[in-house]
């Protein structure tokens, strides 16, 4: 299978869907780049190049640059979705949600319910998240727990190029508002990605390792770290299942509960802030619904309750890594 980057996989998914359905349009700050400027068109293709090439192929009617006014254009994307288009709008960094969250959580997310089922809002909001880029407190947050909290939103966290393409195609074809989280550190990761279109259903977890001693649930960039940890654990004679839920809303509870029923031990790895997080969410699920299988305390591996620091010296300590996962899983196997 051809190797592609996470960035290419996303680009390819969007381009393919644009070819397939003329209602799919793209918008965001510098998603082409160069609007009104004397130099190159498509000068940026997004701040890290994810939408590069769409403008030359699809033109200004389908690839819209925007002024810096996230409420207006994310809201416009929601309004366009509710009236017949299928917009893919970019919230450049998820950290910027604070200037436009209303249009996402009170408008797009609630249309269907508030309007008694008489609305469809096929909206995709692409957004960059995560630490590791030395981008400091306002450009490094995860925040997917906040979106997961909101009924009416679907939340997608691709952990690999393969996932990125299949989940993006699903997101665009989906009739509900989807927030699609792209980890900035993963853009250059490569992996096998088929050329043809394929979808990955929401709410179906992927088991990237299978084992019987401990279940590790991890999200986004943390899946790779969990896999590394599982490989290390294996060398120590501990066999771990790694579960990548791929979407936090809907969540594949069954896959997690089934695995814990087998292993009796759970580690959750979440890059988001620890309070009211996905780590907590999964811990709740298991402590409530698979308690009798548990042989040991649940362990969560998260950053501390602090903003993301700038200095690489601190940021490297902030982000959970394989060593902490190994430590947690190992400690659990001492129980039961």
């Amino acid at each position: 299978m051809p190797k592609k980057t996470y960035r290419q996989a996303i680009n390819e998914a969007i381009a393919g869907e644009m070819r397939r359905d003329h209602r799919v349009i793209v918008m965001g700050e510098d998603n082409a780049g160069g609007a009104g400027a004397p130099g190159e068109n498509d000068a940026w293709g997004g701040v890290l190049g994810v939408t590069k090439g769409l403008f030359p192929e699809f033109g200004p009617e389908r690839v819209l640059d925007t002024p810096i006014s996230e409420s207006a254009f994310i809201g416009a994307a929601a309004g366009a979705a509710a009236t017949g288009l299928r917009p893919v709008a970019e919230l450049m960094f998820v950290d910027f949600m604070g200037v436009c969250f209303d249009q996402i959580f009170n408008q797009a997310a609630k249309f269907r319910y508030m309007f008694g089922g008489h609305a469809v809002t096929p909206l995709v909001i692409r957004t960059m998240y995560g630490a590791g880029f030395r981008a400091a407190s306002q450009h490094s947050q995860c925040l997917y727990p906040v979106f997961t909290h909101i009924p009416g939103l679907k939340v997608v966290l691709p952990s690999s190029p393969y996932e990125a393409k299949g989940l993006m195609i699903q997101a665009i074809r989906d009739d509900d508002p989807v927030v699609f989280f792209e980890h900035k550190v993963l853009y250059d990761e490569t992996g096998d990605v088929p050329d043809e279109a394929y979808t990955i259903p929401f709410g179906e977890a992927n088991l990237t390792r299978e084992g019987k001693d401990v279940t590790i649930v991890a999200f986004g960039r943390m899946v790779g770290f969990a896999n590394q940890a599982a490989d290390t654990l294996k060398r120590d004679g501990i066999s771990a299942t790694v579960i990548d839920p791929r979407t936090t809303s809907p969540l594949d509870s069954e896959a997690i509960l089934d695995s814990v029923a087998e292993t009796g031990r759970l580690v959750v790895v979440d890059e988001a802030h620890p309070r009211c997080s996905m780590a907590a969410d999964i811990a709740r699920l298991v402590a409530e619904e698979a308690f009798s299988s548990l042989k040991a305390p649940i362990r969560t591996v998260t950053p501390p309750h602090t903003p993301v620091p700038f200095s690489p010296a601190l940021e490297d300590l902030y982000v959970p890594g394989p060593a902490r996962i190994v430590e947690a899983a190992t400690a659990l196997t001492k129980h039961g």
Partner: protein
Amino acid sequence: MQHNRDFLLDSYRSMVTIRRFEDRVHEEFATGKIPGFVHLYAGEEASAVGVCSHLDARDVIASTHRGHGHCIAKGCDATAMMKEIYGRRGGLCGGKGGSMHIADLSKGMMGANGIVGGGPPLICGAALTAKYLKTGGVAVAFVGDGGSNQGTTLESYNLARVWNLPVIFVIEDNGYAEATASAWSVGGTQRGRAAGFGMPSAEVDGFDFFAVHDATAEAVQRARAGDGPTLLHVKLTRYYGHFEGDAMTYRGQGEVARLRQESDCLKVFRRKVTEAGLLDDPELDGIEAEVTEAIDAAVRDAEADALPTAADLVTNVYDRY
């Protein structure tokens, strides 16, 4: 005033329907039958109906917390609206939305909105759809004077201008945002702001249906011709409190009574059309009687309608989950 009779009769009927609807909601609210926060549009009818008198099935509007009038003017079913306000299963939104969230996308009504400034961004999207699909459609955001200070509204001016969208921003300036006077809260002027964003604008007497109708004509034409957004600053008043229960102590002594007496939009309409010999009083009285009956029936139907059930609680969150 060159208008055919049917148009005039329809317009009057629409305005009277709003008035009776709101008066009845006011009465029923006082008896405790209607739950929640309810913001009434009585007094402002000429705006909703004057604007919507130009709109058709291609066109979309976004409303505010004070949405009943816009809904009726855009063609939503008044009985289904009443049921919604009563929280009944047969309501336009199955009882899930209530007064602040009445919507009927099939009628081009994108929803009342509980968030001040919520509508303008959405309406830019409806306009984008119309522009992209070349339907010739126009998108109208109704905004209060208070809502005109919200950043989401101001951003939308710019986006509509930069993307050259077929949008009309109708600033319904009833002088107050809750208890706060627009004379205090609005720095500069509505028209000055429009100019600042490169948008044409007009100031409109919102007590006069015909003034609203004429100003909207120009804006709609501009939008349909692909010449971008317009702002209309419509001056009018509301008769009831900000929401039901508001004692309106912030208003001037006799302010509402005087406006009701002198500037009521229904009276102005009646005077104009009868003086011009276009319609006569008995015809207009006839409409009022019909509407009164229809709204009475709507209230009866609403009170008789079933409540939603436990199964309804968890449906309609997603298309598929």
